[in-house]
């Protein structure tokens, strides 16, 4: 295996609605920023991979249009995943492992504000027997939360505590969208959105983009501050939610074991719903001394197709700031934590 490091990370400020820039301009800004911070000349980037979904903004081939933001001339080696950008980074990491390239750029973008996100996410379901029932993403998460709560070990109060901590942590994150001091009692007194979920249990709808540059050890430029990818693995569960035990995350557990998720200072968990953070903590066996989501996590900003790669970037930022030595970054995809990626990152 080749040692591979993250050299740089860039993201847009996350907003409910991006009203200044097009997707292509968002991509241009984060890609330019990430490449500059990497210390590599743009022409040295050996491979580029993006993560996005055309369903979000309703523009067919938006993922190809986004390449206009790269200045892809002379023509570049490029790929795309209809997944969160974390999987774009995974593909880039694989490309470096194969020896096809020594450096790579991964980026992702999402502009969910142009559509109706909970309904758009219905398109992830089997289109013949499940999708036509019209179930939206929040209802799917509510089914999961109900099954999890009814095991008797967990409470809605614990869920509210996750929301309060996330949005308090986000006060220190200039790029976060939803931040502030909230009180558990007050949140619990609000009406349900879709029972058992309150509004505070759900993520905001977010527009944004991000980018990372990675390099093999022998391609890390002098003066760089590399964060090493010590382990990375992703696992998937069946597509039909009925096949799965929604109260657990065996795919996260296995990915965590394969990635070597131990001795951690922090964990950035991609948990769009409060109860999902608690399911993930159980699956990964995280002790209480592991700081969870210092960035505020997906409850503070949840740009679709972006928020998973953001976890990796935010984990890097903690390491670069000297607040952590070894970090876990997690990304999820699909309904109710269907697919999960775990990455273990370590400072130089």
């Amino acid at each position: 295996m080749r040692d591979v490091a993250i050299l740089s990370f860039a993201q847009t400020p996350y907003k409910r609605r991006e009203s200044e820039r097009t997707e292509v301009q968002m991509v241009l800004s984060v890609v330019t920023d990430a490449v500059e911070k990497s210390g590599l000349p743009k022409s040295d980037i050996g491979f580029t991979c993006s993560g996005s979904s055309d369903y979000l903004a309703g523009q067919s081939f938006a993922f190809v249009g986004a390449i206009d933001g790269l200045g892809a001339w002379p023509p570049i080696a490029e790929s795309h995943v209809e997944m969160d950008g974390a999987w774009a980074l995974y593909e880039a990491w694989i490309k470096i492992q194969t020896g096809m390239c020594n450096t790579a750029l991964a980026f992702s973008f999402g502009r969910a504000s142009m559509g109706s996100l909970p309904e758009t996410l219905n398109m992830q379901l089997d289109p013949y027997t499940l999708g036509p029932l019209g179930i939206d993403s929040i209802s799917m998460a509510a089914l999961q939360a109900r099954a999890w709560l009814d095991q008797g070990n967990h409470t809605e109060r614990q869920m509210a505590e996750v929301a309060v901590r996330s949005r308090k942590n986000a006060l220190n994150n200039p790029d976060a969208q939803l931040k502030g001091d909230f009180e558990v009692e007050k949140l619990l007194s609000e009406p349900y959105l879709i029972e058992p979920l309150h509004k505070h249990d759900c993520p905001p709808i977010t527009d944004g983009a991000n980018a990372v540059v990675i390099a093999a050890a022998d391609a890390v430029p002098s003066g760089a501050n590399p964060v090493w990818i010590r382990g990375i693995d992703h696992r998937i569960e069946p597509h039909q939610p009925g096949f799965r035990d929604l109260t657990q995350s065996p795919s996260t557990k296995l990915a965590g074991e394969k990635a070597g998720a131990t001795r951690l200072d922090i964990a950035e968990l991609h948990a769009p719903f409060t109860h999902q953070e608690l399911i993930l903590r159980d699956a990964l066996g995280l002790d209480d001394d592991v700081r969870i989501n210092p960035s505020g996590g997906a409850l503070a900003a949840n740009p679709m197709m972006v928020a998973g790669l953001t976890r990796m970037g935010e984990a890097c930022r903690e390491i670069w700031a000297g607040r952590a030595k070894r970090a876990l970054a997690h990304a999820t995809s699909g309904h109710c934590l269907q697919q999960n990626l775990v990455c273990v990152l370590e400072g130089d």
Partner: protein
Amino acid sequence: MSEEKSEVKAIVTPTKLVYQFSAIGSHAEFLKAISEGKLVGERCPSCKKVYCPPRGICPRCGVETPEKVDIDDKGTVTTYCIVRVPSENIDLKLPYCAANILLDRSDMPIMALIQECPAEDVRIGMRVEAIWAPEEDWGPTMENIRYFRPIDEPDVPTEEMGDWY
């Protein structure tokens, strides 16, 4: 055949998603201009290419393109095809000609119909002009230009069309 024995060979599951497109920056300026019967493009500060419709960036150089350029509604045919098969969405008399047209002052051809001449007469290098819909029908859409038609100017030799791609 009894109902319980009839086979299910296909089902229809309608899907509808509603989007609100936010016209931003270059998109908005282009759509505003065309709703006033004008074409606007943007020049790349690096390679100097002019793009119309503009996207706010140069896809070749990967830089922003803040400089606005007024674009003429006359241009030159860079390639074309003659359509002889009907299409459900297009209500035109066959055969008709669809062409790439390099608008004057722009470096990126747009696609449009050529009418008011036999399709067989269209050729690369032919000079054409835009025929606009009646002003009362103008909106923020490319459909304001109904089609292009030939004008009485000498053909442009291919080597003089410029370095478009």
